[in-house]
């Protein structure tokens, strides 16, 4: 490696006063601030940066930018770093990714020896026999997986996100983009300019003194117009209504950041990407594109070679030749416009030695620069529904006319739209910027009208300004894709033009099929360098035109985004009730229940059960979903949602209700109390609270927007405490003076509002999930801790103690109450759960009515097969608690076993001193006394008996009604 750094040059972006030391494959090197990893390495004389994916061929610089497929490197624990783009940092540890044991001597180059058989898709054609050897083959193939190394143990970094609402986003900070941004800003629009490179200016940055002067003038104008300029950032995706993902790779020196922007108008000024030329040896180190050579020489003062052949079909190639000569490189100019082409790049091992031309001449060279044409990166436009359209005269794709979509909210300018002088591009950019600003004003007005409740709208809508820009011209360009020899089309995937032709011959003759068979265009640049050549080779192979072949679909993101930036900061809220600190102090064992952290128990759940059955216990049930429902049509709403009737529910009473979806499957259950004529408090299951609210809103907003009813989620507004046990009335009487708690005055299934422990406006209802006399208190949340503490303090002599979720689960199972989602599943209709008594088919309408009518009455077309039935089950062995989800089997045909059901809930009951279960069993089997076979997880069979009633304990309900 011999140093290739040139003496100081005007326009160079390196700071020679700030040398930076770094390592490459463990070897100490140095570069300057402003260098990229690749430019620093190239300056140090490095010519091979990676090994290719399949054949492990040595690879050098191709484009010296973000899209360079040959210079992906590992930096520390970060894989796949774009070495042509990432700026050098002090003490960076960079290494090659795809080489073993070293970049220079790669053992896998041996695959090149077998390369005769290694055409694209070869793996589909071999390694099939013997079948038992395939796992071994697979392991070997996996060793050839490309890419860097990820360390799953590496420490996560914190990524923020930003939301922006600019009027205009300009994607691309070249001359046209800068001019568009400045013009839009001058017209009063809030503009964000997003530039992929580390500085704005586009190709002007490496285009000589006049180019640099023009670039800084344009940038200054944009800044003066108040444009926010983001560099090292890319508009990665575009969705409906200009919802943009902008990835800012080094936001303020920090980790990558995702900006989510809702732009009114998007201007795509992404410029052009230079296209490689396909010929034998075109992937040999020393063959590079004209933009790569110019960038190296002009931005980083690196001499890319000493003796160059410049194969040029356009002005950019000619400029590259001039630049190289100015950098002291001996240049041989091969003008493609005269019909001469390159047919081969030859040399030994890792070096280019000579270039063979179509006329047979051989030119000694260690550098071959090609300028064969351009690709318009139309991805963002395609994401807005604009198709790319091939123009054979200009030999490239353009956005299909008129290049706008979605009410003119997406525009394009610059090289992507056409050719012309710098002045023409700037002028087109300015016109585009003015158009964008005018259209943004129209769209802003529409937005304000749509949200007029937020702010009054002044004046009529400004007309949507028509597109009267003078279009950019299109320059004639030779159609150069593939020489007479075969070469590499996709550098990152090691796909050659021969591979593509063979694929076409084998029947993969459309662009989508050839892409999938060969994996061409599926590498790191996602086809930006490869697609057009792929299409051109395929067109030639199939005897069609490039237009007929077309391109594959461009999919987001335009440039890859780290998972960290996409994820942002983790946002997983934790919900606790107002009593949480008290539970912690009481030594709760916490359990996660959805978003909630709840007390599973306070030490001994079985003792908690016994205490509730004998004395009195209190449980925090705040996570119960609670909805305040008010309005004249509130009763209609309840009638629609629930299976049972609500019209006759008296004010001051509560009722249990079950909701089903349209298919009759149980959705949720809970108790609702009528607090006033038009006022209800509905409770839902804790886990179903969110879904029920959405369900209700869906019905109200789509089917019954005319109903006068308001539904307010008040789950967190109340602390909910269930006071349960034979002594609960005595306890509550000590804390209440304005509610008569006597059994005659406050009956089972009634609701009262009153004062508890001095806290007014508490809602209390008498229900019994645990099967005991119990009162559920809904206390304004701020007073929750006070009421909880008061209950404990007032009932010391009554034996009051808190109980947790586990004790509640045991008691509800003793009582035979099912839990939606545990004892029911996605097919459990109301009759399966034994809810016939609740279903009122004579109601005018309710969710699930037709399905349930069919299930119960068999109309129309005969009753469906009743599949399952929820039953209470007791194992014969009272000490055996079958794990939940154990299967229940019966003898099947031919001595086999058949699954007929499963245990849905099981516990050991301290009250009954035996195991108890709920189970779903086929409807043919569940009569009381039926013997069942339960298969334990271990495979052992246990006997169990079906019970007559769901309730294992107090089936008459004497306790809760007392």
């Amino acid at each position, binding site marked *: 490696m011999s140093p290739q750094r040139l003496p100081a040059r005007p326009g160079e972006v390196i700071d020679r006063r700030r040398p930076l030391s770094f390592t490459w494959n463990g070897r100490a090197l140095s570069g300057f601030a402003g260098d990229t990893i690749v430019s620093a390495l190239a300056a140090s004389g490095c010519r091979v940066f990676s090994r290719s994916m399949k054949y492990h061929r040595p690879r050098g610089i191709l484009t010296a930018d973000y899209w360079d497929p040959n210079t992906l490197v590992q930096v520390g624990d970060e894989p796949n770093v774009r070495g042509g783009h990432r700026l050098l940092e002090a003490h960076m540890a960079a290494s090659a990714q795809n080489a073993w044991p070293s970049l220079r001597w790669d053992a896998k180059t041996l695959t090149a020896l077998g390369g005769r058989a290694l055409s694209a898709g070869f793996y*589909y054609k*071999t390694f099939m026999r013997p079948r038992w050897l395939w796992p071994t083959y697979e392991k070997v193939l996996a060793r050839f997986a490309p890419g860097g190394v990820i360390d799953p143990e590496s420490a996560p970094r914190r990524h923020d996100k930003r939301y922006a609402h600019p009027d205009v986003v300009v994607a691309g900070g070249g001359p046209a983009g800068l001019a568009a941004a400045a013009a839009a800003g001058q017209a009063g629009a809030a503009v964000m300019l997003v530039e992929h490179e580390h500085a704005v200016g586009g190709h002007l940055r490496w285009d000589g003194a006049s180019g640099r002067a023009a670039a800084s003038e344009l940038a200054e104008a944009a800044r003066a117009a108040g444009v926010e300029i983001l560099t090292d950032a890319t508009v990665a995706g575009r969705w409906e209504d200009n919802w943009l993902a902008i990835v800012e790779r080094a936001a303020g020196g920090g980790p990558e950041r995702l900006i*989510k922007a809702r732009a009114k108008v998007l201007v795509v000024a992404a410029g052009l990407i230079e296209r490689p030329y396909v010929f034998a040896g075109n992937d040999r180190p020393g063959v590079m594109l004209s933009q790569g050579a110019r960038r190296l020489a002009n931005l980083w003062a690196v001499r890319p070679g000493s003796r160059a052949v410049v194969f040029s079909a356009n002005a950019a190639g000619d400029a590259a030749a001039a630049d190289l000569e100015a950098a002291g490189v001996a240049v041989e100019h091969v003008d493609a416009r005269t019909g001469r082409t390159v047919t081969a790049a030859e040399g030994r091992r890792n070096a280019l030695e000579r270039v063979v031309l179509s006329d047979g001449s051989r030119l000694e060279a260690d550098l071959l620069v090609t300028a064969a044409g351009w690709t318009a990166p139309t991805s963002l436009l395609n994401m807005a529904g604009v198709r790319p359209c091939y123009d054979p005269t200009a030999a490239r794709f353009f956005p299909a006319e008129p290049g706008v979509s979605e009410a003119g909210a997406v525009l394009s300018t610059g090289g992507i739209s056409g050719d012309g002088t710098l002045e023409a591009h700037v002028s087109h950019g300015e016109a585009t910027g003015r158009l964008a600003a005018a259209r943004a004003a129209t769209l802003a007005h529409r937005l304000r009208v749509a949200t007029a409740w937020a702010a009054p709208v002044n004046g009529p809508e400004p007309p949507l300004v028509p597109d009267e820009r003078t279009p950019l011209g299109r320059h004639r360009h030779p159609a150069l894709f593939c020489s007479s020899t075969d070469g590499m089309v996709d550098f990152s995937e090691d796909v050659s033009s*021969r591979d593509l032709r063979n694929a076409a011959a084998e029947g993969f003759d459309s662009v989508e099929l050839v892409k999938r068979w060969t994996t061409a265009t599926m590498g790191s640049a996602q086809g930006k360098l490869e697609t057009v050549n792929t299409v051109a080779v395929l067109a030639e192979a199939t005897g069609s035109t490039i237009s007929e072949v077309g391109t594959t679909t461009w999919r987001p993101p335009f440039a890859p985004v*780290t998972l*960290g930036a996409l994820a942002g900061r983790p946002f997983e809220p934790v919900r606790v009730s107002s009593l949480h600190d008290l539970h912690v102090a009481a030594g709760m064992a916490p359990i996660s229940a959805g978003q909630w952290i709840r007390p599973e128990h306070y030490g001994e759940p079985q003792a908690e059960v016994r205490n509730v059955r004998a004395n009195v216990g209190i449980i925090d049930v705040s996570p119960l979903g609670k909805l305040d429902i008010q309005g004249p049509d509130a009763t209609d709403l309840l009638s629609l949602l629930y299976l049972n009737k609500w019209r006759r529910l008296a004010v001051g009473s509560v009722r249990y209700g079950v909701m089903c979806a349209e298919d009759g499957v149980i959705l949720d259950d809970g108790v609702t109390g009528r607090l006033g004529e038009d006022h209800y408090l509905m409770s839902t299951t804790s886990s179903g609270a969110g879904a029920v609210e959405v369900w209700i809103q869906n019905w109200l907003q789509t089917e019954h927007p005319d109903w006068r009813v308001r539904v307010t989620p008040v789950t967190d507004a109340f602390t909910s405490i269930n006071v349960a046990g034979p002594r609960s009335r005595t306890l509550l009487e000590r804390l209440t003076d304005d509610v008569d708690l006597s059994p005659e005055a406050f009956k089972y299934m009634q609701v009262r509002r009153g004062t508890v422990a001095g806290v007014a406006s508490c809602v209390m209802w008498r229900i019994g999930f645990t099967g005991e006399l119990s009162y559920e208190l809904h206390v304004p949340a701020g007073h929750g801790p006070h009421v909880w503490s008061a209950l404990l303090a007032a009932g010391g002599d009554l034996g009051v103690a808190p109980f947790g979720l586990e004790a509640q689960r045991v008691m509800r199972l003793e009582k035979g109450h099912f839990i939606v989602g545990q004892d029911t599943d996605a097919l459990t209709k109301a009759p399966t759960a034994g809810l016939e008594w609740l279903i009122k088919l004579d109601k005018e309408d309710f969710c699930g009515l037709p399905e349930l009518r069919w299930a119960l009455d068999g109309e129309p077309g005969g009753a469906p097969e009743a599949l399952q039935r929820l039953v209470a089950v007791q194992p014969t062995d009272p000490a055996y608690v079958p794990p939940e989800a154990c299967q229940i089997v019966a003898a099947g045909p031919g001595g086999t076993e058949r699954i007929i059901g499963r245990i849905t809930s099981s516990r050991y009951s301290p009250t009954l001193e035996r195991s108890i279960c709920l189970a779903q069993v086929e409807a043919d089997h569940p009569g009381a006394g039926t013997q069942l076979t339960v298969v334990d997880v271990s495979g052992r069979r246990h006997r169990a008996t079906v019970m007559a009633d769901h309730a294992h304990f107090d089936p008459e309900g004497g306790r809760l009604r007392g």
Partner: protein
Amino acid sequence: MAPSGSGVAQAARRRARYPARYSALALLRRGKRPWPPILRGGELASSYDAVVVGGGVHGLATAYYLASNWGITNVAVLDKGYLGGGGSGRNTAIVRSNYLTPEGVAFYDRSLRLYERLALDLNLNVMFSRRGHLTLAHSDGALRTMRWRAEVNKQVGVDSEVIGPGEIKRLVPALDVSEAPRYPILGALHHPPGGIIRHDAVVWGYARAAAALGVETHQSTEVLDVATSGGDGPDGKGPGGRVTGVRTSRGDVSTPVVVNCTAGWASLIAAMVGLRLPISTHPLQAAVTEPVKLFLPAVVVSGSLHVYVSQTDRGELVFGAAVDPLATYDTAGSLSFAEDLAGHVLQLMPGLGRMRLLRQWSGLCDMTPDYSPIIGPTPVDGFHCDVGWGTYGFKAAPVAGEQLAACIATGEVPELIAPFTLDRFAAGRLVGEKGAAAVGH
């Protein structure tokens, strides 16, 4: 039906006669010369014994098994786009059989067994990678469902077991099984036979093998209408009628059998014979990262976090999630999908923050009310369905093709697909895979 000319359908297995068999030796001999085309196409004939609508993995498998198992070779597969351009090319290539219902488990178990030897059957390496499949549980409820699936699987003879965090860590060291995440991993359903496969290769393998048996494949050939007679509805369509042919963008074809093997457009094709299918179409999004060296040895699924992930032999991580909530044919995908996905992946494997998402896409899923397919005969004689595959069609393709071919050839509905016929909706005989399939990959 009986194939024309050959009298009675026979179950004698036919071997495909390839113009050139693939093998390592043949590869070396052929060098860089191209191989013969994998397809048989050309002009449309005026009549076929059967027309399969949809050149995806289901349509091609059906055609292949019609030809290989039943000798019905005068078959055309029609596709309006290119081979495998729908769900076959957009899925995340996971195969498994750890379903929830006995019917589902038996069905997918047969599919997995066919997949395991598919490379030999088709003489094309579909790169089946049996690497184990982990469905993580982050809650008591999820763990209960895992146990449910494990117990059903064991009863049906499929290898599935609920394992704890220690064993999970041993199998997939990159997973964070600590208490630190908001929703710690409590356990997992481990299904060793599950794995991934090269999905496109399955498509090409069936296409090539079917072609070698005489089946024609016509791409860019759109079915515009299905001709029927004798039905209850207008134009002889509807129940009680029978199929007489198809009208395509390349002309009319007569045929007594039409097999609807489409996704996204299944209900539109069914409407051509006057049938309504209980299907709504939702997009399912997926994404892939840049490749890194292999570190993820198993397929990992988290239903609670709505994500599934596997690493291909090329080193890319392939991600999927739940179907989008709204019914639409729009496949533009969304940013929020990528954001949520990344967030969830990082909850599972916090060290992956520097991996980069390279590409995202979406496909269309035809969802039925019970998340199970519609397969078999319909009230229109000769019109068969193999549709409604939701998010799990790819893993079912071999068995669906095999059984449907038997159904078409014999006129009897085989036991494995009997639970999934269209008439179950009228009979109220739904198959309860909804719980297991919500993010069931």
